[in-house]
């Protein structure tokens, strides 16, 4: 059973890889064309925009949600009232579909309906905030929706990490008279590496897979302004009927994952080696 589950991934990836070297159109064929699909891929505007976008989206989303999430966690950690209620509020967007999230923010950022229109209605007519209609700024609209959906999770994971820090560390820091913010920044933060890594990985996986949000919020537009690799692959294998091209794009999507896993493996190997060397100095 486990072999089947694992086999699907291995065989699936193998086929994807193989078809990326063929001229497959609507259906896969065995007409090998070498690196043609990759050459075409990297000269396609649509793909280049997609790659550019995922960097912008990924870096902004991860940085903001980690910073915002940690801030929330630290503030939640101050023995505040109604902690459970606040936690529920920060976290509930994560329970909802990205389709739902996308639709909600599509409306919130709609200049004829959402925040901008409301503020105009309140008399602040010079206010301008409608990122989705401008190709230059549409990607930032997606980032806002992403932060809204994912920061709460980061908060929850980091808060659990903070609560796991040995209570004597806090007592020691208090006795030493270290200001609370310094404890959170220089003592607690390094101690919750594990929780940070968990939150980081969770966000990374979400970024690479981002598809539903785009479909619901912008459909990849305006124009091709919010194209993403995941959207590109699906378009290639469905409406564009260009399977070979889609498979080349899919293979490229695997690359960053392999790099991250390789780094992870390397880090683990080094830690193990250091532990082994520490045992026999």
């Amino acid at each position, binding site marked *: *059973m486990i072999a089947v589950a694992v086999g699907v991934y291995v065989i699936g990836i193998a086929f994807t890889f193989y078809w990326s070297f063929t001229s497959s159109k609507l259906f896969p064929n065995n007409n090998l064309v070498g690196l043609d699909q990759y050459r075409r891929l990297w000269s396609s505007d649509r793909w280049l925009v997609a790659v550019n976008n995922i960097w912008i989206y990924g870096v902004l989303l991860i940085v903001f949600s980690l910073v915002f999430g940690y801030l929330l966690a630290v503030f939640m950690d101050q023995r505040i009232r109604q902690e459970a209620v606040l936690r529920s509020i920060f976290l509930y967007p994560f329970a909802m579909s990205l389709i739902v999230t996308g639709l909600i923010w599509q409306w919130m950022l709609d200049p*004829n309906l959402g925040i901008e229109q409301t503020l105009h209605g309140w008399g602040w007519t010079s206010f301008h905030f409608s990122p989705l209609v401008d190709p230059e700024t549409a990607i930032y609209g997606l980032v806002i929706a992403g932060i809204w959906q994912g920061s709460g999770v980061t908060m929850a994971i980091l808060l659990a990490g903070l609560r796991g820090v040995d209570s004597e560390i806090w007592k020691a820091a208090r006795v030493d008279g270290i200001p609370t913010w310094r404890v959170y920044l220089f003592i607690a933060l390094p101690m919750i590496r594990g929780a940070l890594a*968990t939150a980081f990985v969770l966000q990374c996986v979400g970024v690479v897979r981002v598809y539903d949000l785009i479909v619901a919020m912008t459909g990849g537009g305006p124009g091709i302004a919010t194209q993403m690799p995941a959207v590109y692959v*699906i378009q290639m294998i469905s409406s564009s009927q260009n399977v070979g091209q889609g498979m080349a794009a*899919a293979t490229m999507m695997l690359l960053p994952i392999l790099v991250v*896993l390789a780094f992870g493996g390397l880090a683990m190997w080094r830690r193990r080696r250091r532990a082994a060397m520490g045992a026999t100095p």
Partner: protein
Amino acid sequence: MSAGDMTLTDTEAEARWGTQPGGVKPRRFSPARLGIYGFLVISALFFLIPLYVMIVTSLKTMPEIRLGHLFSLPGEVTFQPWVDAWLNACTGRDCNGLHPGFLNSLKITIPSVVVSIIIASINGYALSFWRYKGANLFFGLLVFGAFVPYQVVIYPLIIAAREAGLYSTLAAIVIVHTIFGMPILTLLFRNYYASVPIELFKAGRVDGAGFWQIFFRIMVPMSVPITTVAVILQVTGIWNDFLFGVVFAGRSNWPMTVQLNNIVNTTTGVREYNVNMAATILTAAVPLAVYFISGRWFVRGIAAGAVKG
């Protein structure tokens, strides 16, 4: 004995700050405390406002919405948009509302959750207690599988489903959800069983229990917490899925998320924002209910789902 001790109890906070009177007790009106609450309340508003807007808008009539007062309470409350969303909203020429999608989502979610959890629990048990050749390789591949973007394997799966004659059927979507749930769920169960003392397993073997007897009579009764986490993870994950539903389920089995997107992003006709927002809330209702009922278990599920290795 739990996998992922992501508990957030008040006693832990107490242990840190101490309970002695005075000294560490928060002063009620210090500027610092005000700042803390200010930040938290503003953040809470950021998270809550969209939901508030959705709810009030779904209760307004279209003329009132066109006035553009997004935040104001409905002048005259109407439930017609909710009825329309459920029964009459259109996608293209079909005007059956969301309820077929709701039923489809049930038909997809229930078997997918049951099947994937059964298989994953057995896999996790086998991986953590029965050391066999290649167990580590399987484990490594599973971790890898948890990270693989769906797009990388989706097309070969489409072809496989088509070859098997299952494409656009309920069976296809259930199988696909089971496959993609497998890495995370197996890791979840493996980690949980790895935290069970090995001596329990040895005691079972001394008592003469075999692979299945140890699993069903010792491990399964202990697995209530982790199964709860897995159910939460899977119900919300599968209910919220869009991509697999649109690709594998076929038009007649489209889940709620797909129908919602079609209703809202349809290009024909006038945009009925109140109906759309009611439909959106309806689609989010099931996972939100799971979330609010399960409370802390949900956080555990997410943390566990994030591959703690």
